[in-house]
């Protein structure tokens, strides 16, 4: 989403350019601080800028001097912070104007405001808001991607509408009228793109978090506490495959008297017991142990499962042709031995 070259003149040009310079100055100071704190990641800024450049290069024409495409800046803002995201958006816009005649020099300030301030800063703000609300990475980043795009459209539409209503000769509508016309024209083109960017941003951040949580930690996308929670979730998910006995052998909870409750395997108090006990008490029933309590028998339950699995595997392997059918004209075992 760029405001095209040549459309802004007079006070709109000067005001947006001045505001763009301020945003860039803030962003560059953030970039300097980033490099000072993490000098080994200096090339990452260029890589991230190249990334924004790529994403925001596919143009689709829209109404009154705009063309639309994924912004890419919300993702950059989420991963690298709002200031750096805004500054990289500005540099990316400069290169696009120079290399591809996309956007332009006159509207550079306006585009920095919409894509940098609206996209990167807005995306980051809503991502943080989502995280503070306790949303998972997928939902929070998706919210950031969606709202970053919507803010970009609102700022672009406002700049364009403001210029046409207040500074262009012989306007036909008021500011509100132009804004309504521009937004009505944006919706069919931009809404699918915003939804797509929401999905892509959410999935990308979640994917990075799953594969390399250390990257998100290093870039301060998630805090140390959040990383610990992520790791705990990973451990919990992998731990679900373990038997209760294995858990019990490692879990030691201390009672008020200072004595360990985990004196023997299988005596731990897990969530099921707590929930079931609470439900039973709420229903007026007295909680009691299962009638057939295999957990007290040590590894009997595991041994039974193992034996059952082995037996089932033997039966299925021996009679697979009855279950799935024999391949026509396929040589049988005797023919294979003969050949």
């Amino acid at each position, binding site marked *: 989403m760029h405001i095209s070259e040549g459309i802004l003149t007079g006070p709109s040009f000067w005001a947006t350019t001045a505001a763009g310079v301020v945003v860039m100055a803030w962003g560059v100071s953030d970039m300097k601080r980033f490099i000072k704190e993490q000098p080994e990641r200096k090339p990452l800024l*260029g890589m*991230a800028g190249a990334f924004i450049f790529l994403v925001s290069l596919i143009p689709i024409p829209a109404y009154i001097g705009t063309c639309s495409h994924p912004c890419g800046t919300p993702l950059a803002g989420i991963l690298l912070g709002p200031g750096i995201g805004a500054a990289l958006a500005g540099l990316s816009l400069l*290169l696009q104007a120079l290399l591809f005649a996309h956007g332009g020099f006159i509207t550079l300030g306006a585009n920095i405001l919409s894509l940098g301030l609206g996209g990167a800063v807005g995306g980051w703000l809503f991502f943080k808001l989502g995280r503070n609300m306790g949303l998972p990475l997928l939902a929070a980043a998706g919210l950031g991607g969606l709202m970053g795009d919507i803010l970009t459209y609102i700022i672009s539409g406002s700049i364009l509408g403001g210029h046409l209503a207040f500074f262009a000769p*012989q306007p036909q509508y008021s500011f509100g009228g132009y804004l309504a016309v521009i937004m009505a024209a944006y919706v069919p083109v931009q809404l699918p793109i915003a939804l797509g960017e929401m999905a892509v941003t959410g999935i990308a951040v979640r*994917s990075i978090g799953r594969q390399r949580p250390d990257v998100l930690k290093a870039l301060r996308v998630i805090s140390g506490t959040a990383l610990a929670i992520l790791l705990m979730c990973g451990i919990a998910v992998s731990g679900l495959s373990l038997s209760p006995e294995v858990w019990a052998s490692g879990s030691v909870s201390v009672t008020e008297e200072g004595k360990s409750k985990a004196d023997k395997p299988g005596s731990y108090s897990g969530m099921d017991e707590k929930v079931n006990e609470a439900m039973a008490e709420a229903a007026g029933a007295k909680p009691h142990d299962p009638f057939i309590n295999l957990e007290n028998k040590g590894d009997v339950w595991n041994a039974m499962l193992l034996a059952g699995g082995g037996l089932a595997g033997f039966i299925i392997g021996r009679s697979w042709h009855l279950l799935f059918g024999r391949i026509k004209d396929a040589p049988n075992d005797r023919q294979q031995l003969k050949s």
Partner: protein
Amino acid sequence: MAVRSHSGLRGMNARLKLVSVVVAVLFNVVMLDYRLSLGLLLTAWIGMAVSRAPLRHVAWFVLAPLWATLPVVFGLAAGLGQTPLIKIWSLTIYHEGLAQGGLAGLRVLADTAWAGLLFLTTPFTEILAALRWFRVPDVVADTLGFMYRYVFLLWEEFCAMRLSAHARGGLVGWRREWRTTGTITAQIFLRAYDRAQRIQHAMQARGGA
């Protein structure tokens, strides 16, 4: 992309060219005169011709802005003015709006032609050196250099992954396409992250900053 020969403006100082572009763009937006815009446009085209810039690249800097210029012209023609010129269904094109749109279109072409003149006659490293001379912060110039160097590489990686996903049926249906694109985007970012670290180590090993 810059011309390798020393003909025309190729031998001109990059700093002077950079200042010329900025001044031309500023005059173009402040003066708002179609004769000035036309003059700037012709000057830039003559400059590219004298510098023997490849015709294919020149054509790019002429045709690419047309895509964005047409909505500007028609948007202003329909959105500004009082005197109706043509009525196409419910859309009215106004005389004053068309004049404004034409002027804006001419400004776009002139600005883009000057950008092309700078870019096609100056190697990017010289542009970066000129920016440094004008006290543009190092971090900005370095980042621009990295972006220019790696943008095409990342694009190729993105295309290769997308082609691979397409061959495996990963782009069938919009839901799967979004998911695949998100995963590829994450991979591209992680590759860029790892590559950035390797580059930094390589630079440090060679005595760089």
